[in-house]
Structures are given as structure tokens and as C-alpha cells.
């Protein structure tokens, strides 16, 4: 299998001195669906922000598609790695849904017709076609979440990074959102503490606590180990 993400000895300290990641080494292969679980403040979001080059650490190496992240290839890598933020309010910053979904493709330099086509496809994939001219403020939380996903899909990434995708969703919306995600063939990295959901969607689970990898195993192995879940504040 092809290695798509390669992390070696990654450590990160926030500017305020808080240690967020300690010596993380990790390989992720094409087509995998990796769940990252851990209590609040375990470093899940910080790790995801590194994979997109938003946070940069001096310690450790990250290779995406075999290339080390640097300013020269940041654009290409960001177009291949889509990051869904926790709060859709942060992801939808333009006045209309169309402007929001077209933001990525326009930045990648596609021509007008292609951009329009990509926006259409992305909105159809998340079943939000027809909402182009709506303002994000007028959407329900579930709809916002879908459009936020479309903003990433429009860039046609190969890896999806999802930060707590099911947080704050009502049960039915959550169910629909999970069904939607299951249909995607991308390499997925899902962070969160919706254990049911991660159990359902992942092929591999990484348990993170206080910036360290505690365990990296099959979902069945981790979720049957009540002791380790209890010790890491997950039950």
C-alpha cells in the first residue's frame, strides 16, 4: 500500500508554552480511515492542523505523498488535503453558499466554468444543491455542516481531515452525515470523541492523550479494552 502521510518524531509547543504534541510518529496509508480519539486537550486538533501545514513545528518531519512540507509545495499539498473544522461558522465566511464553496477552487486557479462545475458537483454530493444563493447565516446547523464539507470537496482532495464532524448534530442529522461520509473513498482521518461513530467508520484507531500516542490498533482491539478507555477518560 502507498504511504500518504508520514510523521516522524513530531513535537509541538504552543506559543504560550503549552506542550501539545510529544514525539508523534505515524504512517498513514492510502484508503485508510483512521480515527483519532482522546479526551479534551489531547492534541487531536493540533495534529490535524499540522497535516495541512497550518501549524509548523521545528521538531519532527511530516511527509505528505512522499514530499516534505515546505513553502514551495504548500499550495499543492493543501489542495490534496482537505480539513473540515469543528465549527462550521468558521468555515463559512463568505456572504453566500456559492461564494464559500467556490473559494477553494478559485484559489487553486481554475477557470470560471470549471469552478462553477466543481461547486455544483460538491453541493450535489452533500445534497445541498439549490442552496447556492443562500446566506450561511440562514442555514440550520446540520446544513452548515454539509456546506462546510462541500467547501472542501470542491477542491477535490485525496485526504479528508475531519475534526469532530458529528459534534452538536442531532441524532438524525448525525446519522445522515455519517452515511454521507461512509460513501467517500478518500483517505480519512477523523478526530473526535463520538466513539460510536469512530467505531463505525474507521479501519484503524489511534488513542491520543496529553500529546502522546497511547495506542495505535484496530478498532475492535481498542474498543474492547475497557481499562485503557477508562484510563484515558473515554468512558
Amino acid at each position, binding site marked *: 500500500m502507498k504511504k500518504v502521510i508520514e510523521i516522524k518524531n513530531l513535537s509541538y509547543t504552543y506559543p504560550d508554552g503549552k506542550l501539545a504534541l510529544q514525539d508523534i510518529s505515524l504512517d498513514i496509508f492510502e484508503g485508510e480511515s483512521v480515527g483519532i480519539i482522546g479526551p479534551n486537550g489531547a492534541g487531536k486538533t493540533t495534529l490535524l*492542523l499540522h497535516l495541512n501545514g497550518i501549524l509548523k513545528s521545528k521538531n519532527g518531519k511530516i511527509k505528505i505523498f512522499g514530499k516534505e512540507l515546505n513553502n514551495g509545495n504548500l499550495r499543492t499539498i493543501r*489542495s490534496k488535503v482537505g480539513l473540515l473544522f469543528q465549527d462550521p461558522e468558521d468555515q463559512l*465566511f463568505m456572504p453566500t453558499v456559492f*461564494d464559500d464553496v467556490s473559494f477553494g477552487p478559485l484559489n487553486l486557479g481554475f477557470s470560471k466554468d470549471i469552478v462553477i462545475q466543481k461547486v455544483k458537483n460538491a453541493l450535489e454530493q452533500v445534497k445541498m444543491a439549490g442552496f447556492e444563493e443562500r446566506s450561511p447565516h440562514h442555514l440550520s446547523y446540520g446544513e452548515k455542516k454539509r456546506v462546510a464539507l462541500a467547501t472542501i470537496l470542491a477542491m477535490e482532495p485525496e485526504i479528508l481531515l475531519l475534526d469532530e464532524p458529528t459534534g452538536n448534530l442531532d441524532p438524525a442529522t448525525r446519522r445522515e452525515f455519517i452515511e454521507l461520509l461512509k460513501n467517500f473513498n478518500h483517505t480519512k482521518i477523523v478526530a473526535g470523541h463520538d466513539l460510536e461513530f469512530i467505531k463505525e467508520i474507521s479501519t484503524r484507531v489511534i488513542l491520543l492523550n496529553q500529546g502522546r500516542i497511547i495506542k495505535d490498533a484496530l478498532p475492535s482491539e481498542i474498543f474492547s479494552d475497557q481499562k485503557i478507555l477508562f484510563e484515558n477518560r473515554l468512558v
Partner: protein
Amino acid sequence: MEHSFIDKYSNLDSIIHRLDPRTKILSIFIYVVFVVLTSPNKFSEFFGYSVLIFILIFLSRLPFGYVLRRSFVIFPFVFLVVIFVPFYKFDNPVEIYRYGRFFIVWNVLIKSWLSVIAITVLTSTTRFSVLLKGFEKLKLPKFLIMCVSFMYRYIFVLIDEVQRLQRARDSRYFGGKFFLQLKVYANIIGLLFIKTYNRAERVYQNMVSRGFDGNIRILNNLKLTSLDFSFCIVFSLIILVIKILV
């Protein structure tokens, strides 16, 4: 939570609604310039401009009451002018003798009122996002447009946040000294600043992760139609007729 939007009536359908935003922006701009540059003693001219703007409101199917209520926002400003009238030194006393000291109030009131009504028609018949695109096509700096667009997007999110903070305060508030209250509000303002700052950080991370490199790109497919050209011509002609003939 529900908020009143300045483009509340933008989804109605009328000739004015169907116009390209650029046409509306330019027409209203011309209108405002003409109104402001009219000498305050030309009462018939002002009558002509009033009739013109009320015809526009009628054509746009906006509720009259709504436009009037919106236009009242200028009254506090006019009031400010009224306060200072006794202290004015007039360069041209002839007109003052003729019409009285409050001539200057009339001057400010009618010009600002007509202008605000005109701008209300513009903003109420155009969706805010489309209005911004119109300004963008008219070559206003993209940076400025982006700023306004962010403001419009997040002002309601911010208002929601204020309301939540206020509710949290109210649920633990059992009366207290005024000074203590002031302190609580100071804290709320500080908290809001931090929240906004953090949100701005996250939004920027988001933009960057979607390929933002400092150049603002907006897809703009506004098209001028024959309706726009005819509206522009008719509108300017009417204004000229008012200016020259009345």
C-alpha cells in the same frame, strides 16, 4: 436567533429588483450628488426629487412604512445640527433674513433625508452579497469589500454571542451596585474581544487551508441587460429635467 436584515425585502420581484447592482449604485450615487448640490431655497426642485424617489419606492414594491422607518435613522444627526444652530455665524445673511435661522436645519434635513431614502431603496432591493459584487465590479478595492463582507457575515454571530453572555449574566444577577455592574460589562467586552480574535484566527486558518495566498478572488457573473441601460438613461433624464426645467 432572529435578526432584522438590511436586505429583508431583497427577495421581492420588481423592475428595481431585477436591475444590475451597478446600475442601482450609479443611479443612486448620481441622485445623491444632485440632491446634495441643490441650493436649499429651490423648493420646487426638492419637490421634484421627492416625487422621483417615491416613484422608485412604488416601483420597487417596498412597503412605504418600512422605508420611512428606516430613513428616520438620520434624525439624531439632524438634531445635532439643530443644537448648534444658535452658534452659527452665517456668511450669507440675506437668505437667513428671508427664511429664518432654521433654514440651515431645513437644508440638512431635506438633503440627508432624501439621500437616506434613496440609499434605503438601494440596499433593500439588492441582496447584500450582490451589492458587494456590484461594488467589486465598480473597482472598489477588494480588500475593503472583503472587510465589509466579513463584517456582514459575522455581525450576527457576534450579536448571538453577546446575547448568550448577557443571558449568562442575567441568570446569576440578583441586583447589585451600579459600579459592580459596570465591571461586569467591562469583562463582557473584554471576553468578546478575545472571542472575536480567536474566531478571526480560526477563519484565517480556514482560508489558508483552502489555498488563500493573500489575493482575493471572487467569481462575479453580473451581466448588464437592456433594462439597465434604459433605466440609467430614463433616470438621468428625469434628474436633468428636474434640474433644468423646474
